[in-house]
């Protein structure tokens, strides 16, 4: 019973597609236009060509720091999150007691709001009453200023962010692990492989597609880091934790330099978009 249902389809799709066009597609194009203008919201946008990009890439020293910090955060979080996530996945995939409990426990930080997580860790990192300093003291180590120390602040943010995200990576790997047939391990065992061997030569290679996917989404996520920075440090101390998105926010909504902030957006967009194309290709491939 194949018949054209164009008109019906139009009404079914109107709300969804309409909203997507208005609130996603159009803004994502308009931002390119704004990036070539000087725009303070009060006055109309004024075309200035590539000036924003020139300033951003050549003159803005804070943006340079923000880019460095974002790279630092990315290099700090991505490998740690993936490796720990994989280890957790292997652990909760084994036939252990209370398996579901552990899965739920490790996933719990993922569903907790990043703001709540930030506030909780600010308390743990508190220099005077924080538990982390208490543990250091117990171990007879010097206590730290954590979020107030220029050198230590980024590692502190990284540690907290890894804690929040590993559960997510764990679940993705868990799905991959469950797809590996048990016979493979059985065969390897007969051939005399120990557990580490089978992990290295069977598990890891078979998880490669997932690792690629996980890698790309983790990198994309890292480039978008904002909320914990905003709440925990406000980009400080001394710009030590300001990031690309934080600069975007500050320029747009504190200085109201919408054109300049749009140029930041465009740069970020290009980075993330190219990474997304990669992951989309992969995801599309996995679906078929």
């Amino acid at each position, binding site marked *: 019973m194949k018949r054209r249902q164009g008109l019906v389809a139009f009404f079914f799709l109107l709300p*969804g597609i309409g*909203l997507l066009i208005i609130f996603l597609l159009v803004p994502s194009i308009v931002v390119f236009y704004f990036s070539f203008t000087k725009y303070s919201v009060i006055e109309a946008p004024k075309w200035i060509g590539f000036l924003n990009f020139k300033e951003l890439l050549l003159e803005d020293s804070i943006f340079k720091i923000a880019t460095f910090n974002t790279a630092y955060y990315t290099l700090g979080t991505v490998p740690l999150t993936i490796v720990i996530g994989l280890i957790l996945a292997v652990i909760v995939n084994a036939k252990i007691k209370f398996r579901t409990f552990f*899965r739920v426990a490790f996933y719990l930080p993922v569903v907790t709001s990043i703001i709540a997580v930030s506030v909780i860790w600010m308390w743990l990192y508190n220099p005077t009453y924080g538990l982390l300093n208490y543990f250091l003291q117990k171990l007879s180590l010097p206590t730290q200023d954590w979020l107030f120390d220029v050198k230590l602040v980024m590692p502190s943010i990284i540690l907290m962010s890894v804690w929040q995200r590993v559960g997510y990576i764990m679940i993705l790997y868990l799905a991959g692990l469950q797809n590996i047939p048990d016979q493979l391990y059985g065969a390897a065992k007969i051939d005399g492989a120990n557990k580490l061997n089978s992990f290295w030569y069977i598990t890891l290679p078979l998880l490669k597609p997932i690792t690629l996917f996980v890698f790309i989404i983790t990198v994309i996520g890292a480039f978008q880091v904002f909320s914990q920075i905003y709440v925990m440090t406000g980009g400080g101390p001394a710009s030590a934790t300001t990031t690309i998105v934080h600069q975007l926010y500050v320029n747009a909504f504190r200085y109201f330099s919408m054109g300049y902030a749009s140029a930041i957006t465009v740069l970020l967009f290009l980075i993330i978009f190219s990474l997304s194309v990669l992951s989309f290709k992969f995801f599309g491939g996995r679906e078929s």
Partner: protein
Amino acid sequence: MLLAIVAITMLFPFFWVVSTSLKFDAEIFSWPPVWIPSSLTLQQYVTCLQTANFTLYLFNSAFVTIMRTVFTVAVASLAGYAFARLHFRGRDLLFLAVLATLMIPFQAVLIPLFLLVKWIPLAGGNDLFGRGGIGWIDSYWGLIVPGVANAFDIFLFRQFFITVPQELEDAARIDGASDFGIFWRIMLPLSAAPTVVVIIFTFQSCWNEFLWPLVVIQSSKMRTVQLGLAQFAQQRLVDWGPLMAGAVVASLPVILIFLIMQRHFIQAVSTTGIKA
């Protein structure tokens, strides 16, 4: 043994926030720290909910999240159904275009979206051309509407509706059902599985949303609970008791839903891989 250590490390921050939120100030600020409160008190919660206005913030968050979820399910199920079961020209191409929007990061539209919401015609003192007022800035509409449609939810519904046997549709058509009738009376009642997933994800992402509320909300009475918590954390850095209570109430709804529905949650994340 190793597992126990890992689990304790992972869960420890949760234990500590709950423990702190149930203590009197004297034990919160004691050194060495008191692990388990010697006497329990809800005082921190009372301060948080009343003095710090979290009751209002919770209401705002609940209202916005429920509205967003309802709209999302409606919009996504309709679109997903059209892509799965209706025949029209350019369907697959259009669906691909919808999927492609998944690659647009939210930050990329933040600035234009803010301006767009400010220019919504005939809202917030605006004229027909969106000038003169603030549009949907600082309003529930501004919080709810821009996030309603998203490709992921449409995708989920489409994937489900594709699996419904054609015979069901044919039988209903012979009985004289309209296209909408088939959707409403036959298909939607069958689609509990994708609906649950969409509700869970929308609830989670909307409740935990921060950047958009931060940008669109200006007055304190419109704050969502995440926004209220963030502001509270920045202004009152010494009130650790009420702050911890705030962290608990701001995360509890999603955590409860997660604990109740954890099977759905984990299954959905592992099969779809995105959006968490």
